[in-house]
């Protein structure tokens, strides 16, 4: 009987060990135990999440590849496919921010080119603790530098993303990275091993002792000893990956390849078993043939290493020399380490002696699946209560100020200066967002937009999440996240086509966390169905906890949308003085979970905004139609900070052009000041601020009416101030310059002393 301590170190539960015994009909040796432990880790097996993920919509006429492969793919016309996926690298980034983030980027890029697609854009979604808290700036600096160091070097532009700061992420930052690639729809390549006797090749970096049990680490909580796990983080080499990328794409242009997969989590173990399993075949390798960076490595270490920049290929028999020649051109050595077999086993040899022999299905399809207990968290009822009557909309921001107007001005400036809302220029300036000369909408303009050379088309991409909303109501929060990502894409003029999700949650063994997870997945499913954006893949990251405190439940959604005419792309900023400002959608003054309540009152309370998915769908289709007809000059969705922040942001990067807006009031409390704040800063969903030439207004309104989308001219672009009246009373009047200064230095000021 295996020592219980050995089992515990491998993260295996006693009943899981019993299961291993049944599969093998004998005791596993240590190498086999290691293989089971990584393949059955939460990270690789999705054992807690699988039953829920199965409920997500994954079909649609546009879907070329759904979940289960290295990445998803959708049809974007002209024989082309958009291949994309989002993935987390939270745990490694906390332990070693630069390398953790860098290798996250490297991993997602490999997933994309593995499918035969050339990666053309990256995005990222980052969450940290408060920037005021000690250590946050160091983490942010390291993560951003890591993303930049890898993406810039390999030459794939980072065209957008999002960053939020909340104390809940202080001990567990989130680093989610998204990559998009383009392939010929007919040439998508899969991670399969088939054809008995075909050669199994290993290409790329040598195998070292780095990252052993990385997948197991990613499936455990953090505590004060986590720093001791540093050796489990890998080191990235973007140059090696650039060579692999170019060489693999060149190999894929031949038809010598059967299948290919990168060695990510669980390294050689995961790639051999998954490829064999997908192809209904077995794979036999000899670890002594694996290129090694260190001497004396055991089969256990070689199988479990997570050294970066390695690929596993299955090559058609007789075509080996051709493949080796292409890798040789790029100074890469392709090592023939094994063969495809017909027995469905993963068989590992060391100099000819079998050291592990496990049926593939035991490691993949028949890995444990748990239907874990769920129960609504205790905190919910309490935090969902937000007493608007007790909010003093005058006192908090303008001590001594009796009138409403100055406090609204101050609240707007505070919101614009909050790092979650403020400009992310300090961050994206470090990312090469222009390389490959396709970027039509650069970061900070809403969704990132990249054109597809050789066609008229462009793709708009957005990643969005809102942990605070999901903490207050995971179902509604998840719906709002999907809706926001799709709306951002639609604001650029693109029709949302497909989605990928990254689900960041705490310890699933706690019923409250599992409940959050299940509710969020239900919300994602409902929203994706209603908005016609099937989920094509993604990633689940559980155990995001430190010392027993979980992060906010944080599903992050990536959406890809299509512009049939790249030159009709729309972006955030107002374009022309005299243009009409039109509000699509209706404000209901919803302050629950808002950035306003958090920034001004330091409260995370209330119920997130309601959403009608049919109305949201109508709004998005209208935006696409208006852009396609060239009827609008800018579009920006209302999210954090509500209408006032949205209108202000439309004025930024225009050289100081202002706006005059007048909106109706709302009645959400007995207090006039609270009602005013709710109209300005409430975060009611399904709203977009657009601008249009005066002569286009009539048509825009008519189109909106026939689409059933509420629309009203609320103002005009011009002047040098942001002026907003609520219910006929002036509420906000601040010079654009002053607002833009607050906004543009929101993050920069934390690093000001370090910038020359």
């Amino acid at each position: 009987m295996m020592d219980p301590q050995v089992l515990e170190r491998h993260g295996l539960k006693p009943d899981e060990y019993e299961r291993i015994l049944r599969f093998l009909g004998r005791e596993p040796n240590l190498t086999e135990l290691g293989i089971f432990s990584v393949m059955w880790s939460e990270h690789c097996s999705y054992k807690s999440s699988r039953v829920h993920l199965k409920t997500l919509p994954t079909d649609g006429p546009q879907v070329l590849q759904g979940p289960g492969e290295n990445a998803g793919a959708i049809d974007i016309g002209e024989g082309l496919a958009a291949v994309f996926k989002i993935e987390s690298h939270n745990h490694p980034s906390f332990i070693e921010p630069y390398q953790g983030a860098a290798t996250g980027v490297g991993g997602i890029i490999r997933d994309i080119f593995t499918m035969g697609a050339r990666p053309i854009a990256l995005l990222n979604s980052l969450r940290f603790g408060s920037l005021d808290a000690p250590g946050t700036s160091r983490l942010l600096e390291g993560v951003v530098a890591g993303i930049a160091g890898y993406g810039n070097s390999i030459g794939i532009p980072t065209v957008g993303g999002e960053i939020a700061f909340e104390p809940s992420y202080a001990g567990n930052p989130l680093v989610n990275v998204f990559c998009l690639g383009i392939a010929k729809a007919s040439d998508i390549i899969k991670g399969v091993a088939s054809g008995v006797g075909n050669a199994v090749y290993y290409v790329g970096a040598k195998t070292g002792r780095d990252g052993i049990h990385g997948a197991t680490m990613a499936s455990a909580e953090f505590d004060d000893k986590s720093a001791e796990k540093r050796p489990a983080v890998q080191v990235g080499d973007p140059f090696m990956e650039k060579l692999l990328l170019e060489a693999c794409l060149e190999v894929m242009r031949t038809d010598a390849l059967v299948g290919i997969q990168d060695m990510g989590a669980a390294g050689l173990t995961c790639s051999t078993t998954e490829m064999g399993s997908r192809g209904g075949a077995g794979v036999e390798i000899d670890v002594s043939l694996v290129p090694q960076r260190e001497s004396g490595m055991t089969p256990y270490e070689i199988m479990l290493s997570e050294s970066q920049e390695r690929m596993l290929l299955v090559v058609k028999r007789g075509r080996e020399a051709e493949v080796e020649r292409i890798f040789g051109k790029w100074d890469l050595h392709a090592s023939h380490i094994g063969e495809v077999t017909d027995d469905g086993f993963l068989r590992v040899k060391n100099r000819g002696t079998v050291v592990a022999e496990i049926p593939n299905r035991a490691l993949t399809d028949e890995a444990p699946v748990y239907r874990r207990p769920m129960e609504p968290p205790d905190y919910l009822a309490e935090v969902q209560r937000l007493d608007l009557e007790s909010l003093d909309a005058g006192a908090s921001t303008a001590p001594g100020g009796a009138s409403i107007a100055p406090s609204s001005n101050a609240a707007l400036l505070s919101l614009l200066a909050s790092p979650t809302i403020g400009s992310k220029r300090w961050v994206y300036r470090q990312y090469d967002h222009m390389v490959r000369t396709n970027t039509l909408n650069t970061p900070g303009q809403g969704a990132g937009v990249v054109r597809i050379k050789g066609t008229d088309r462009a793709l708009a991409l957005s990643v969005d999440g809102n942990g605070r909303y999901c903490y207050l109501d995971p179902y509604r929060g998840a719906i709002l996240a999907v809706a926001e990502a799709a709306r951002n894409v639609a604001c650029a003029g693109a029709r949302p086509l497909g989605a990928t999700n990254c689900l960041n949650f705490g310890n699933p063994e706690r019923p409250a966390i599992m409940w959050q997870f299940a509710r969020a997945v239900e919300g994602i499913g409902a929203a994706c169905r209603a908005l016609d954006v099937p989920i094509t893949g993604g990633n689940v990251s559980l155990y995001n906890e430190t010392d027993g405190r979980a992060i906010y439940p944080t599903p992050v959604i990536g959406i890809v949308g299509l512009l049939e005419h790249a030159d009709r792309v729309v972006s955030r900023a107002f374009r022309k003085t005299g243009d009409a400002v039109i509000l699509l959608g209706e404000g209901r003054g919803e302050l629950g979970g808002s950035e306003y309540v958090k920034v001004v009152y330091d409260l995370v309370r209330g119920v997130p905004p309601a959403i009608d998915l049919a109305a949201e769908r109508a709004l998005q289709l209208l935006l696409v139609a208006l852009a396609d007809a060239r009827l609008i000059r800018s579009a920006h969705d209302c999210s954090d900070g509500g209408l006032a922040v949205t209108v202000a942001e439309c004025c930024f990067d225009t050289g100081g052009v202002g706006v005059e807006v007048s909106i109706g009031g709302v009645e959400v409390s007995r207090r006039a000041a609270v009602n005013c704040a709710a109209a300005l800063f409430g975060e009611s969903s399904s709203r977009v601020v657009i601008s249009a030439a005066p002569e286009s207004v009539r048509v825009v309104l008519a189109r909106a009416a026939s689409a059933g989308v509420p629309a009203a001219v609320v103002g005009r672009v011009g002047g040098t101030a942001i002026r907003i009246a609520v219910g006929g009373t002036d509420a906000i009047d601040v010079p654009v310059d002053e607002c833009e200064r607050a906004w543009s230095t929101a993050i920069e000021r934390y690093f000001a002393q370090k910038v020359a």
Partner: protein
Amino acid sequence: MATFGVIVFPGSNCDHDAYHAAKDVLGQEAEYIWHKDTDLKGADVVILPGGFAHGDYLRCGAMARFSPIMREVAAFAARGGPVLGICNGFQVLLEAGLLPGAMLRNRSLKFQCEHVHVRVEQTDTPFTLACARGQVLRIPIAHGEGNYFADPDVIARLEANRQVIFRYTNAAGELDAAANPNGSASAIAGLCNDARNVVGLMPHPERACESALGSADGLVIFESVVQSLTSGALVARA
């Protein structure tokens, strides 16, 4: 019709962009030339593109100078052929000794990607002859090590010989410390060799050839070399 030869080092990543600007935007011929090749495939003008040649884990460009094709590039330059090094290509030219000086890390110690303004200082090079002297171009930079450095006597010689071709300025074309993005000596963004046919610059003109990308100000640099070749001002075929 001019033929642009775009050198591809392992780790080059703006090779596609230079090729696209020359071929698809300008309608000229373009060829990729692999760094292990030993001939320039009949190129009339050679571009060393941006990127991270050989990963740039050592000094930027320090390994690329040893690539076999660099012997041909040096010979082509010695014959008077026009050579343009962009960003990493500029760094390679410095390491190869085809241009004087060296690059330090940006003053911010961070990679910076943004549009900047550069002023055309001299128009008697193949890459600026279609420019007006003092013309201000809005072109992006994207580098971590673009802080140009040389000994004061080298800078003095560059100035005396009018070898400083581009300088960072504000939008009005005025020198301004705040408009020098990386701390370069004398705000140098680009320079040429003694013979004026080899030009290196840190900003990326190939990223500024189409207004859809935010600026088409870089186009004039490519148009200049086409004009210089077709007008017969330069006749040095590979």
